[in-house]
């Protein structure tokens, strides 16, 4: 019977020699066993639409499998889950965000250090402003320049997810030798007994508009008209058609002939494997500003990072895996973690529902702060640079003026 995970288990694991925490969970499609799922596709152009398939060996049999969610994609989901919990339940989380909501844009938005592709060292955050200065040149941002595996104190307080999911500060002054933090958490979802299916596409237009009913012309106001006299004119005074040739389908009208292409798989089950490497966390050191080593603080910080990682994994498991259109998976097992220590010995197992994960995480962060580690309590909100704001404004204005589906002329 697995016990419940608690803070002591994590602390002892980090203080000892254990290799990893690992959680393997089975899922079924939301539509029930045997329902079709759509994995991610890779590649571009002619070579696009390719699934990542592989063969595995299970109990002496060959099993065909397909990747349903990659390591990078799972990491993104876990960061988003943490961000959402922070917004809803006030879970402790340092957040640095670039705010596009206060400038009267048609579509306001905000991008945080948990959403930017390169986390806190992303170009967007680098060039946005704190108190009138680009972030990396501000007091907070400058501290990031000295970040290293052996000097992770600042990063712990500003962006702990960078220590869990990895970071490479490739565009700081040091270029390719910029700070590199190895990821500690790896997670992936694979579908088993994958059998390829087909996908149909078609559309029946209730108004039964025929091709010969066109051509359609663009109007000045962004709509369309059948009357050539009312059409927008180009620089040669010719009427401008909708799309390339004014076909009704360019305005989303009319039937689409049914077609069948290959698509999707049926699977017997999906398996999500998440591994938290303890040696990766043990490498991190959290000295004082003057370089003094602090073993107590080291353990407290690593414990908090491990707790954050385990909590993030529990969160995405509890949400179910809504991976993409027509790929919703629901877990069919409790989330049991193995603590992998001496090889050959059976591992200890622990259950960790998300609610317990939250409590442990909050406790661990409190203890880390008590041990003297920094922790950003209030989100740092950055102002986008004036140039970027102008460009975003211009782009959004262009988009609202054009007929639907027209690409921005670049």
């Amino acid at each position, binding site marked *: 019977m697995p016990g419940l995970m608690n803070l002591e288990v994590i602390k002892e694991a980090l203080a000892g020699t254990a290799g990893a925490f690992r959680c393997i969970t089975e899922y079924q499609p939301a539509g029930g066993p045997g329902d079709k799922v759509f994995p991610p596709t890779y*590649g571009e152009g002619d070579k696009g639409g390719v699934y990542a398939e592989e063969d595995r060996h299970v109990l002496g049999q060959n099993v065909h499998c397909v990747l349903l969610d990659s390591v990078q994609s799972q990491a993104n989901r876990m960061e988003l889950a943490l961000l959402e919990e922070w917004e809803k339940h006030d879970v402790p989380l340092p957040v640095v965000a670039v705010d596009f909501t206060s400038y009267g844009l048609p579509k306001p938005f905000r991008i945080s250090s948990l959403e930017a592709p390169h986390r806190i060292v992303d*170009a967007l955050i680098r060039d946005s402003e704190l108190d009138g200065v680009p972030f990396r040149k501000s007091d907070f941002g400058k501290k990031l320049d000295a970040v290293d595996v052996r000097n992770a104190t600042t990063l712990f307080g500003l962006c702990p997810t960078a220590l869990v999911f990895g970071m490479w500060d490739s565009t700081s002054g040091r270029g390719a030798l910029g700070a590199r933090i190895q990821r500690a958490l790896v997670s992936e979802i694979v579908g088993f007994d994958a059998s390829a299916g087909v996908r149909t596409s078609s559309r029946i237009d209730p108004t039964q508009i025929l091709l010969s009913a066109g051509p359609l012309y663009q109007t000045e106001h962004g709509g369309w008209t059948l009357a050539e006299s009312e059409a927008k004119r180009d620089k040669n005074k010719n009427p401008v058609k909708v799309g390339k040739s004014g076909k009704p389908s360019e305005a989303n009208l009319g039937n689409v002939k049914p077609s069948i292409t290959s698509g999707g798989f049926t699977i017997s089950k999906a398996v999500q494997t998440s591994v938290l*490497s303890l040696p990766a966390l043990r490498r991190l050191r959290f000295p004082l500003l003057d370089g003094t080593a602090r073993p107590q603080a080291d353990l407290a910080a690593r414990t908090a990072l491990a707790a954050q990682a385990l909590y993030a994994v529990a969160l995405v498991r509890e949400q179910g895996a809504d991976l993409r259109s027509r790929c919703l998976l629901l877990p069919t097992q409790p989330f049991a973690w193995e603590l992998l220590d001496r090889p050959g010995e059976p591992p200890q197992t622990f259950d960790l529902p998300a609610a317990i994960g939250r409590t442990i995480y909050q406790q661990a962060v409190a203890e880390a702060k008590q041990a003297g580690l920094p922790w950003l309590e209030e989100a740092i909100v950055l102002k986008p640079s004036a140039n970027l704001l102008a460009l975003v404004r211009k782009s959004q204005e262009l988009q609202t003026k054009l007929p639907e589906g027209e690409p921005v002329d670049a």
Partner: protein
Amino acid sequence: MFAIGIRYLCGWAMATDPADRRRPEWPPHPDRIYMALAAAYFETEGEDAERDALDWLERQGAPAMWASDATERDAVTVYVPVNDVSLPMIRRGSVPSPQQVFQGLQVLPEHRPRQARQFPVAVPLEPVVFLVWPAEPPASVKNSLASVCSKVVRVGHSASLVQAWVEENPPVPNLVPTPGVGRYRLRIAGPGRLEHLAAQYANGFRPERSLWRAYDRPQPSEGLALPGSLFDDRLLMLRRADGRLLGLESTFLLTDVLRRAVIQQCPEPVPEWVSGHTPDGLPSQRPHLAFLPLADVGHEHADGHLLGVALAVPRSVPPAEVGRCLNPAVGFTEHGGPRQLRLYAGDRFEWTLELERRSLPPVALQSQTWTRAARRWATVTPVVLDRHPKGNELERQVASIVTEACPWIGLPRPADVLLGQVSPYRGVPPRREFPGLTRKADGGRLYQTHAILAFAEPVCGPVLLGAGRYRGYGLFRPIREGEETEGGYNDSRAL
């Protein structure tokens, strides 16, 4: 004895094959594992004792290994967002052009440009690997190596998480360094490796100058349990990498050109076992290198086309000698990829052969397809008789000649021999469609026939009989019990 175990925690290994960047590396090369240990030492500012332990390890030479086979995940192209984007300069007060809008928006995550990357992944049948060295380390070295192992995070890409430890009871290795031609070519760490890694890192360079060693399955320690021929049953399988399809009828054409290419690449003076000739230029009486056409036969859609050629080496040749003579032709280049052996026959054909390295190649390219123990064997190329049968009872005489040919290659005499125009294997042409051998003396054609042999006890291959056996004729394939055979033979005969 000292052993290190590596467990891939996610069940797969993400590391790029240095010879082909689109493929994963499997099994992990000992040098890669050594570099992971070195990284664990450097990145944790390890103690001097750990450095001494790594120095000891790099002097132990190439380890034996235990690793299962692996399959590969489809190599897909992933697009990873870049970070080296910046905003365009816009003059104050001026309206940004569409180009500037496009460039500027690239800073936003949804418009960020992406770089194509590949992350090759190998999925091993067993996600554990062992490295075994014969030497026994001093206690302090062993403890320090255990400590370094416990700090290893990954072998390969950063997502390729592992657990490493010192193993007291490793399994018997299934991959060992060989002085001969090995199916695998792995990088190993040698003396001075740690220093080189430190120096390269300090100067901002990648590691270089790996040492390469050939590896292969170990030879069974006891002698063969079953009788076999005087050829080593571990054939060197060369697969057709390029060139048009050829059928079994082209056997002589192919093997002659290949033999000349192998001789040409062999270091001088070319020994008798490679050339098949004595120093005086006379045909050798001793067993020498044989070439076997590897044809697609025996299944429902078989058409007898050639997938490659195998080299059968006499058992009596020591592995180091095999390596010395054959590596230049069919071994590995200095970058770790297999050599491409190009064969030309005027404008009749142009082929490229390379060592077959896949762990699960097509049936015809698996050594054991031609060598596994069996009681019954059937021809894929006809047996050529070195003397012409005369007079009455032709069939009995031919059978007798074939029977007596077996001891010539070290096999017992078969209990029964069946002859025929065709082979029981689907896809094999009838005997008349094979170009014949002519006698040097008077130019007369030698008699050739298909045959089935039935031995009293199972024997191991390769089974090559008759004149022309070194050039690919007289090649037999073992009949698996219960295997489908067709045409020409009455299976109710007691065989």
